[in-house]
């Protein structure tokens, strides 16, 4: 590898730019002043206490957790069906169907949300946490399909054939051979869908009809300057939380590649 001092320092600056706002989070979360500005005023854990005591916040967090767990489960299951079918079989209409599944990746989210909202309102389905789940699954499924497709692709077909030759049924082959081998992919898909859903705002806001959901709650609180420091404390907690989750997802992904005997080509998606 050649040394490239200029490129290297540029990349480090770029990382600083990317991380800038996140590095400020803990600084102001522990800063002893309601006004979020320099110079710093001293150390306090008051904002974390305020955050922990906020009953509405706890409600919103609970709802977000319910939504994110449901969305991650449903998207991953739908993703398994689509990825397995697309890797394993050729069938008519494959292109259009997969195109439709992946469409939300190239459609502004607002359009997906509004189209769904118009239909729900027209047929009179009341908005609730359930409708938020319905909408977010649309957004998360493409990510699940992308991750799971590469998991199924790195699977060695001859292992399955061997199991079938040895007298296993297709179903037990899937359970005993395929499922354990793609398990890391399934875990990675679940964790990434969970993270996307937990952070998602547009669908939570427009299909949730004012239900307390974490992202919507945070959005609302930023309109009150006095609430900002405790939101930054919450932000610090959330950042730690997602770094742990993503580190775990990345670990699972790598283990999956190693298990299937492939080479790491890097990257999440």
């Amino acid at each position, binding site marked *: *590898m*050649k040394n*490239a001092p200029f*490129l*290297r320092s*540029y*990349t480090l600056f770029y*990382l600083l*730019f*990317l*991380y*800038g*706002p*996140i590095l*400020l989070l803990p600084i*102001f979360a522990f800063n002893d002043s309601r006004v*979020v*500005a*320099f110079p710093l005023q001293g150390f306090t854990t008051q904002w974390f206490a305020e955050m922990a005591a906020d009953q509405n916040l706890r409600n919103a967090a609970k709802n977000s957790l319910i939504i994110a767990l449901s969305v991650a489960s449903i998207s991953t*299951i739908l*993703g398994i*069906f689509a990825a397995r079918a*697309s890797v394993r*079989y*050729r*069938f008519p*209409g494959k292109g259009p*169907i997969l195109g*439709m*599944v992946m469409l*939300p990746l190239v*459609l*502004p989210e607002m*359009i997906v949300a*509004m*189209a*769904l909202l*118009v239909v729900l309102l*027209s047929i009179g389905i009341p908005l609730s946490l359930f409708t938020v789940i*319905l909408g977010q*699954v649309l957004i998360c*499924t493409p990510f699940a399909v992308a991750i799971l497709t590469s998991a199924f692709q790195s699977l060695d077909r001859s292992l399955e054939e061997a199991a*079938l030759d040895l007298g296993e049924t297709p179903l037990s082959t899937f359970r005993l051979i395929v499922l354990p081998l793609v398990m890391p992919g399934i875990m990675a898909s679940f964790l990434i869908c969970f993270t996307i859903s937990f*952070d998602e*705002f547009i669908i939570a806001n*427009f299909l949730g009809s004012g239900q307390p959901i974490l992202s919507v709650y945070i*959005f609302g609180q*930023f309109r009150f300057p006095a609430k*900002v420091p405790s*939101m930054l404390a919450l*932000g610090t907690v*959330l950042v730690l939380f*997602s*770094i742990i989750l*993503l580190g775990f997802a990345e670990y699972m992904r790598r283990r999956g590649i190693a298990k299937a005997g492939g080479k*790491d080509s*890097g*990257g*999440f*998606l």
Partner: protein
Amino acid sequence: MAQIPSAEARAGLKLISPTAIYVILLLAVPLATVLIYSVLTGSRGSVLLPITGENYAELWSRPVYGYIMLKSLLVALTVTFITVMLAYPVAYFVSFHVKPERKSLWLFLITIPFWTSYIIRVSLWFVILGYDGVVDSTLMSLGFMDTQLNIASYSILSIIIVLAHAYAPFAVLPIFVSLEKVDRSLLEAGQDLGESRWSTFLRVTLPLSMPGVIAAALIVFIPTVGDYVTPELVGDGKEPMIANLIETQLLKLANFAQGSAFAVASMLMVGIVSVVFVLLNRRFIGGQK
């Protein structure tokens, strides 16, 4: 394991049917509904026959719609340009100057900020750009200036900065993937034939990585043009973009027909720009022969 095609087709269709039914019911049908609503007559909270082109005529005749669409388009294109230009050297560095076993660690580092609460990241830009913020207090204490810049008060500029930051990782990944595919022996060949490193880059590496650049541009452009949160939070709602206008039409005014027409028009705009990107790419690849 020879299978006759029809059995394979049946098995495949059966397997994909749950996912297919889900997206048809919850995505295809709603999109079709919006398309149909856009040519019906709107009344508050519902739509009526007859079929009409009125909604589109309204879009055409009121300059504010055109203004917001054009503004969103320009903001998104600017953000796309900045993001891709800033990301290219980073992708190049990781692909060409980082040891293979360290590459995924670098990519991981680049993607982490993207996975943290978008709304909180957006709001933190106030602290950086706003009155007494990081930028102002640093520049003032270094003696570069004696009044506050308060960049946050320039809505469109701050929207551009925040969006360019938010979508940065999206641009790095596709460019990186296309750079990884560049055959390293071509570069050696170019240099053996007497090209300088810079001209080898311009004539070999850059054209070969163009598909990644176009993909990056699309991946950044589409969500930015439809962004809702940033204009609402950073711009304080004073500089609405497409998504904010769709919200106003559909929810605040409950004008389903007019809102649908606007949604269809914006989808068309996004579609046209995307097709232009893809055609540019094709032309670029064709031009190499």
